[in-house]
């Protein structure tokens, strides 16, 4: 059983990302969307948490990253997907947990 988690809140404004990370098991994927994409950039405490969560795959929605002008600050190891890639991720996992 592998879950796809989506997080749409900034990790600096809410504890949604931390809650998700705490409950995500190895083999699952966390997809960062909307204001959640701020977690995908480099140079802050959240980037360290992502680096240390080695059993979890991280992806970020490209359109939301571009909208916020942060393509150039994307951390290593995070896969960029478009809307089609989002759908593919949904089909590749057993269930989706949308953290709100």
């Amino acid at each position, binding site marked *: 059983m592998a879950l796809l988690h989506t997080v*749409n*809140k*900034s990790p*600096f*404004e809410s504890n949604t990302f931390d809650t998700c990370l705490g409950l995500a098991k190895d083999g699952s994927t966390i997809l960062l969307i*909307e*204001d959640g994409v*701020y977690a995908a*950039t*480099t*140079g*802050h*405490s959240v*980037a360290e948490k992502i680096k240390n969560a080695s059993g979890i795959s991280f992806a970020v929605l*490209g*359109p*939301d990253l*571009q*909208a*916020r*002008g*942060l*393509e*150039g*600050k994307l951390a290593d190891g995070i896969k960029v997907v*478009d809307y089609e890639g989002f759908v593919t991720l949904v089909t590749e996992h057993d269930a989706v947990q949308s953290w709100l």
Partner: protein
Amino acid sequence: MSVKKFMYVNRKAPYGTIYALESLEVVLIGAAFDQDVSLAFIGDGVYQLTKGQNTEAIGQKNFSPTYSALGDYDVNKIYVEKESLEERGLTLDDLQHLVWEDEDDDWAEKDSIRLVSRAELADVLDEQDIILSF
């Protein structure tokens, strides 16, 4: 009417919620009243000013170019909190270069953004007559 010190405090990232755009519109409307206006960007609010925003793929209006018009509206005191940038792995180079033209100095271009520490910003807030929070 006496001139009052107005401060708009911006704490939200753009696009995820409507606060950033609403604040910008209120600032532009309020600029008609010839008051002493300052803007502060703290917390996720600093993300409003990142350069290179491109909203084409999310189908929302990109309002980041409008920050460059603030100088035309005599809004040229834009405080950015240093700690907020650092906590997010950002530097001033990641933000738009906002300028205003000083009519009394042969239209010389001057920087609008003032990078201030949390303690300095606390002092600026303390001087205000009216504070509007977004």
